[in-house]
Every structure is written in structure tokens, then in C-alpha cells.
């Protein structure tokens, strides 16, 4: 192999890295809302504030109803790290403070993707997340924007 060929291949490999890396970093969760929810895209900060109940309402004033998966769920770990920018343990500590000071209650926890999907289908103001492989009939997918 000539030096030029090697350098060309090396450059091509460097250019391809973001694509490969991007594909490897596809989120391990999907954010879902009720089909009647008008949002197709939500900013990460907005989703985080709804799940930590720093904000409790949608733009139209209706009370948002976030729903979590159980704390042992890998999907929850991924969502908590990527969207809330915290560990699950840190979020639990945050909620302990909020609960015992009478400030707020955490979102309800569901054991499976199916239970989260059922909750979101049944509540127009709900927002939840499920694993990337979960079927999402009857709910609307939301794209996360930074």
C-alpha cells in the first residue's frame, strides 16, 4: 500500500467515525405522549422539568402527567442519565427531599413498557418513555431537541 493510499483510507475512516459513533449512540428509549398531544418535538430541558416536576403544566395550562419506569429498569437508567442528567440514585434522593418537605410527589412508576403505554394511552396529558424496541401503537412519538 502506498503512503497516499494509506493516508486516504485513514482520512476516510476518520470521516466515517461520527456516523458509526452516532449509530452506536442511538437512544435506548423513546419518549411518548398521547396521540392528541400537539407536541412532536420537545426540548430536553422541558422534558426534564416535567419529570422532576419543576414545571407541572403543558403550554396550554393542562397539568402534565409524567410516568416513570421502575428504578431497576435499564431504560429508566438511560432516560435519567440522558434527559435528567442525573443518576437514578440522585433522582431518588431529590424526590425524598421533595416528598418529606411536602413539596411534590414523584411520577408514578410502572414495571413494564406495556404498563407505561397503557397509562399514556389512557391520559391525554401524560408523557412517558419506553425502551427503543417497544411497539408504540396508540401513542405518539416525540423527538427530543437539545
Amino acid at each position, binding site marked *: 500500500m502506498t503512503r497516499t493510499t494509506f493516508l486516504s483510507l485513514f482520512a476516510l475512516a476518520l470521516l466515517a467515525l461520527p456516523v458509526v459513533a452516532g449509530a452506536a449512540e442511538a437512544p435506548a428509549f423513546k419518549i411518548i405522549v398521547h396521540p392528541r398531544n400537539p407536541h412532536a418535538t420537545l426540548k430536553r430541558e422541558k422534558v426534564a422539568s416535567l419529570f422532576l416536576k419543576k414545571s407541572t403544566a403543558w403550554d396550554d395550562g393542562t*397539568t402534565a402527567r409524567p410516568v416513570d419506569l421502575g428504578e431497576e429498569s435499564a431504560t429508566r437508567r438511560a432516560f435519567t442519565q440522558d434527559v435528567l442528567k442525573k443518576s437514578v440514585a440522585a433522582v*431518588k434522593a431529590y424526590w425524598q427531599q421533595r416528598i418529606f418537605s411536602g413539596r411534590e410527589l414523584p411520577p408514578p412508576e410502572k414495571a413494564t413498557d406495556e404498563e407505561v403505554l397503557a397509562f399514556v394511552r389512557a391520559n391525554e396529558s401524560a408523557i412517558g418513555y419506553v425502551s427503543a424496541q417497544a411497539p408504540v401503537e396508540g401513542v405518539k412519538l416525540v423527538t427530543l431537541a437539545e
Partner: protein
Amino acid sequence: MKRPVLSLLLLLALPAGAADLADGKLTINGFGGWMTGLSNGNHYGYANPLGSDTMAEFALAVIARPVDPLTVYVQPYFLVTREGAEAELDWAYAEWRFSDLARLRLGKAKMPMGLYGEIQDVGTMRPFLMLPMGVYGPSEMFTESMQGVSLTGRVESERGWGVEYDAWLGNLSYHVASPLPGVYGGGAEQGAQPSQALGSRLALLTPLEGFRVLVSGALGRQVPEEDATLEAGEGEESPLFGFVGLSAEYMTPALTLRAEVFTRMAEEDGATQTGFLEAAYFVTERIQLGVRGELFLSSPPGIPADSLLLSHRALEGTVNYWFSRNLVFKLSYGNIYGNRFAYSADYVADHQDGSLKPRTQLVQLGAQFAF
């Protein structure tokens, strides 16, 4: 010894988390603990020279949301000490949420003051078994709850800056315990002091995760005892009091730093200054070390300014083992100078003959849990 052992067994049998029913419309949480201690002569908290004082406590926080903007909070509390058992209602209030910025509370609610005002009994929310005595003890600075009306709200930007406020008006009942009346006369050594007050707390939230600064204050009057022998308006004194304080907190998963400074002025009791600084750090995943320094000084009229019954200086250390975020064992050592909160069982006689020990050393052991 039987009660502490039973309490320990109860602690180990706890569920892992809260009970959440009907998609969050009913939530049940709880907390409790047990502690005892041994001192070198004076009584302080639940430490005494024989190691025979002990306490066990438990509370259940029940929160219901029958309709969307309405939340009802109820928290019964149970305490068992050497003197006996008692049950009381910590909370019983309803909240109507108009918006994130305005939530109206009516009933008996926790007192929103300082860092620990609303979580005084939740041992898993702090490094030490007991809260600092000067601010949260029987110093007529804080009380556990107030009965009345309050407004609270929060606004936070997407960048992380925000404000959380509380404003309240209601009846309070301060727990009073002081060695001063026994030695210098006047007033009761222990009891409840009813008061009426209005107060506020403002918390500044910052983009720095875990850091906040708070300002708290209140203005009120002590409610006099009703005396049927007095004519209306005769001899009914309602001494005014007020206090203000600054609090700061920085918390990461491993490190906790907290500091508070408060000043109280009262028409009959004079001035009081108190403050503390505490730090705790997880040296491993489960072992936490903590240290706290505290200062308290009061200057009521008619009491010699150099009396050790007016002052309290404490340096304490703790080693904690966290089985999980829900259960912790704590072992602490305290070195206290001054007799405002630490004094012997016969402190009046000991003070008169000069044998009241100014320095108290103690070891405390306990466990605290929450779910």
C-alpha cells in the same frame, strides 16, 4: 433494652419504597428512627450518664390527590421515650394548586424555615442523628408546624436559575426547655409557648446543581395565658419576637455542605444568635463521615452575661453506615461547652454549689430510615 431491639428489628423489615396507589392518586411514605447515648455527666438530647435514655419514632406521610389541583397531606407521628409514648398530628392540610407559582395551603403544615424546617424528623435527610440545637432545638427559634394559611410557589428558568418562596400566617406552639428559670427564676422550665406569627422563606436556585441559598424570617407575638380574674385588656401581655436567618447548602452525591446563621430578638427574652456549619462526605459507597460546629449565645435581661447557661458551643463528628438510601446507622461523638442545652438532672443544686460541669462529652448511637 427490649424496646431498642424491637425497633431495630422493625427497621430491618421495612419495605424498599413508598406505596403508590391508583396511578399516584394516593401515596404513602414513612420515616422513623431510634437513638440512645452516653454522656460524661450532663443530659443532652437522648444521652445521659447511665446510657438509659432512648427514643424510637415513626411517622407515616399519607398524600392523596382526589382531584387534579387538590392535594391532601396527613402525617401522624408516634414517639416512644423513657417517659412514655405519645402520638400527634404533624401535618393535616389541603393544598390547592393554582399554578406552579401559586399553591395555597390551609391547615396544619410544616414550618417552611431554613434548610431543615420541614424535614426536622427525617433522619435520612441529614448526616447527624440530631439537628443543631441552637436553631432547631428548644430555643424558640423554629417550631415543627404552624396552623394557618400559607402560599408557596416556584419558578425556574431552563438555564437553572429560579426562586422558590413560602409565605405563611398562623398559630405556632414553641417547645420551651431552658435551665434559666430554675436557676434565676421566672417562667416555666419546660412547656409549650403558643404564638402567632407571619413568616416567609425565599430560596434562590442556581444553575450549579445542588447549590441553593435561602433567607428565612418571621415576626410574631407570644400569646398570653388566659386569666379569668383579669379585666379585659388588663395585664394581657403579648411580647413581640422576630427572627431572620441565612442558609446555604451544596450537595453532590458524595459531599454535603450546609451552613445557617440566625438571629432572634424578643421583647422579654433579649437577643439570640446561633449558627452552624456541617460537612459530610462518603469515603466509600456506604460509609459517610461528618463533622459539625455550632455556636449559640443569648443575652436575656437580668441574667449575668458570662453565665454558661446562656451559651452552647459544640463540635461533633459522626460515622455513618448506609445500608441503602433508606436505612442508615449513625455513631457520633460530641464535645459541648456551655449549659444552655446540656445540664445535669440536678442542675439547680449543681449550679448553686458550683459543680455543674461546663463541658459535656457524649457518644450517640442510632438508626434512621425512610421509605
